[in-house]
């Protein structure tokens, strides 16, 4: 049984505003599904319908086997939710908040205490547990929000833009936690406007624009649809013609950019080492070498003609030098989160 089944889901607001305009999707049990789209695409509205906060005006949706309208109470027992705003009461301590969440989900007494302590430890908030939430940093609030969504071991976890506004270190911490949860069997439905987040975390991505899904698939499959990776090679003067001949063996030459040689790699990113070796064997001096892969933004542009908001800022000039997932250490200019 799929964890989430959505057919023709619609939500219309006053003034004939169609925030969600016929969404179909299915999320398998144990999958991480990312809903990627710009602000106003309908991501949050979809999540709110799936989490029973908003009634659909058309279509059907089932979560953990229950209809979101007719069996809303059963849906709520099966889901954990961390919404876009980490809405936490600043006057409560972390421990009190988890305790309240546990109570709301039917956990009382010792079981609730044990579970709360375990979760606070898991998200690295054990030491801050008795401080008021109002004193927490943004990253700490997000982690507490995540912990409170897990207190009842939900089958399906909904995360609405879980890392928006967080620094790279905190973002990575959240990613690692989400991946760990998924390894333990939790189905995760997350919405995001960050390409890297969808790319790194999701098994499958649904790209939404203007209330409709415009593309769906694994990140690799989606990117492969729009093109192959290419190399941007900066050469030391005098070797351009020779370099072009060598590179033609690996793929189509693309129009020059900023004086660099651009070549598409038919065999994918794995061909990079071969290109470097071939140029080296020919005695060609390379000043710079950049691997540029198609991104989900390229997919979005192909489908909608527009960029995802912020996608251009998100892409660093040197995409190949982006830190691999799981690597520790902070990005330049950011401060590490205090635990």
């Amino acid at each position: 049984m799929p964890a989430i089944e959505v057919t023709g889901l619609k939500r219309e607001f006053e003034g004939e505003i169609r925030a969600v305009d016929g969404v179909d999707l299915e999320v398998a049990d144990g999958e991480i599904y990312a809903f990627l789209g710009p602000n106003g695409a309908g991501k949050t509205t979809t999540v709110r319908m799936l989490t029973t906060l908003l009634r659909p005006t058309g279509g059907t949706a089932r979560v953990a086997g229950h209809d979101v309208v007719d069996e809303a109470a059963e849906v709520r027992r099966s889901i954990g939710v961390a919404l876009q705003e980490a809405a936490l009461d600043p006057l409560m301590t972390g421990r009190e908040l988890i305790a309240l969440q546990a109570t709301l989900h039917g956990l009382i007494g010792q079981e609730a205490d044990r579970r709360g302590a375990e979760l606070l430890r898991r998200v690295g908030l054990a030491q801050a547990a008795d401080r008021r939430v109002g004193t927490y940093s943004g990253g700490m609030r997000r982690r507490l929000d995540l912990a409170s969504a897990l207190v009842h071991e939900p089958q399906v976890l909904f995360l609405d833009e879980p890392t928006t506004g967080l620094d790279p270190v905190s973002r990575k911490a959240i990613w690692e936690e989400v991946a760990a949860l998924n390894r333990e069997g939790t189905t995760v439905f997350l919405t995001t406007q960050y390409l890297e987040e969808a790319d790194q975390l999701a098994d499958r991505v649904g790209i939404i624009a203007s209330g409709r899904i415009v593309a769906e698939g694994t990140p690799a499959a989606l990117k492969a649809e729009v093109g192959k990776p290419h190399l941007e090679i900066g050469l030391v003067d005098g070797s351009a013609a020779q370099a072009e001949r060598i590179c033609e063996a690996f793929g189509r030459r693309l129009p020059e950019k900023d004086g660099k040689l651009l070549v598409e790699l038919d065999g994918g990113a794995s061909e990079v080492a071969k290109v470097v070796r071939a140029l080296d064997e020919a005695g060609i001096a390379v000043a710079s070498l950049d691997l540029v892969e198609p991104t989900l933004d390229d997919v979005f542009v192909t489908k909608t003609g527009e960029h995802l908001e912020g996608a251009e800022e998100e892409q660093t000039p040197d995409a190949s030098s982006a830190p691999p997932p799981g690597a520790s250490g902070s990005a330049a200019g950011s401060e590490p989160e205090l635990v």
Partner: protein
Amino acid sequence: MTGRVEAAGRRFGARTDLATIRALVRRARNEIFRVPGAAIPGVLAPTIFFLGLTAVFGGLTQLPGFTAEEYQSFIIPISLLQGAGFTGAATGVNLARDIEQGWFDRLLVSPAPRPVLLAGLVLSASLRSLIPATFLLIVGFAIGVSWPGIGGLLLAYFFVMGMGTLAACWGSAIALRFKTQGAAPLMQAGMFVLILTTTAYAPIELLQGWLADIARINPVTQIVEAIRQGFTTGTVTWAETWPGLVALVGLLIALGGLALWRMERTAE
């Protein structure tokens, strides 16, 4: 007792509902104990109004037909109910703030039934309304309000809690409808009008024009008179009490029903 539904090995039922209500009441307490000075306006305002109205309109007792010797004994029921009204309205404002800031969604996505969530909000207001009432009574007795007897005092507290509940139901209904703290004046105005369009300032025979007509049909007039009997006569009788009880129950059904109806429609 068999739980309503089992999910992941947990039972939901009366025990978990009560635990939820307790937890929500505990959270509401934080507004008083963890925000320095936050409680002071709500506690002081009814007493300020009581002292002010007594000082200003105290001369009305000289009118033939006035049913009390001291104006402070006559008007204290109004101030008690106003304190409860302020507290209930504040509950509505807090709910509106929680809705605006997204906190309320956290409660709505939980398995806790909607009536249980409402009960938690409303009960906290009911209990909190005892604070301004107690402060007011202390000041009132200090300036000469007649002792109503134990029965009269308990009755007063009972109706204060009842009014706090009513005001919280009204405030919650408004908050759930408009979802903004900007609706605070509407929450306050509702209680303001309900409490003051009664025999607030003078006995029914001395009220003038439209106010006399409204006071006659306003159920809160019965509540006012039920509380007032102790302070103005020193005794409470069933004959003077039961109309107030009926009024309170009727209003609870109406406003409680409205709030509950709004709670069930949060997903619209």
